């Protein structure tokens, strides 16, 4: 059994649940943005920045950014533990898996900070 040290949640089940929850959040957001874009054919800067100046849209977008990161981690972890295995490539599999996840975490943290800066225009 793969030691679940690098997985996202406390257990496989919590990962399963988080992945579904974040999927629903992101899908809802996608529908929201697509509907908005389709309903405003002549999109201008004023309309677009007005949309994102509303607090609930900013919070929703931030929630989506966090969802992307959690969803991505769980998905990436699943792929890595399926394919980057000691059975396939020996001991260096663990090193490779851990370093890929490490890079992911660093990019994810940067993404959160950047996201806040985009939305709250620091």
């Amino acid at each position, binding site marked *: 059994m793969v030691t679940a040290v690098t997985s996202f949640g406390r257990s496989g089940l919590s990962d399963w649940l988080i992945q579904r929850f974040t999927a629903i959040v992101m899908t809802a957001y*996608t529908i929201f943005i697509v509907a908005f874009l389709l309903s405003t054919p002549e999109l201008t*800067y004023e309309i677009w920045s007005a949309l994102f100046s509303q607090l609930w849209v900013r919070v929703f977008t931030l929630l989506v950014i966090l969802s992307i990161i959690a969803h991505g981690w769980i998905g990436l972890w699943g792929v890595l533990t399926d394919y980057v295995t000691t059975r396939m490539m020996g001991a260096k599999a663990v090193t490779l898996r851990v370093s890929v996840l490490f890079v992911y975490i660093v990019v994810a943290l940067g993404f959160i900070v950047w996201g806040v800066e*985009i939305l709250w225009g620091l």
Partner: protein
Amino acid sequence: MLAGILGLAWMLDMSLSSKAEFIDLQDKLSSAPCKLALFLVLSALTYHTAAGVRHLIMDLGFGETKEGGRLGAKIMLAVSAIIIVLMGVWVW
């Protein structure tokens, strides 16, 4: 797809930072390479989302048999193909 999402974030950053940047983004997006890149990223996201929604449906207990799964896969493929084509028209 993860890189694609960072690209979309870059677009959001540009589009919100100022009117000039918004218009600059509009100009950039009217060029063929940018349109192609955007189309590919959005196609990957469309397919991924369609397959994901299908999984959510299966989690609810529908289409879990072999036949149901096969049918669900075909419907999902058709739906994502249609959305991708429509999105392609919208992007171009």
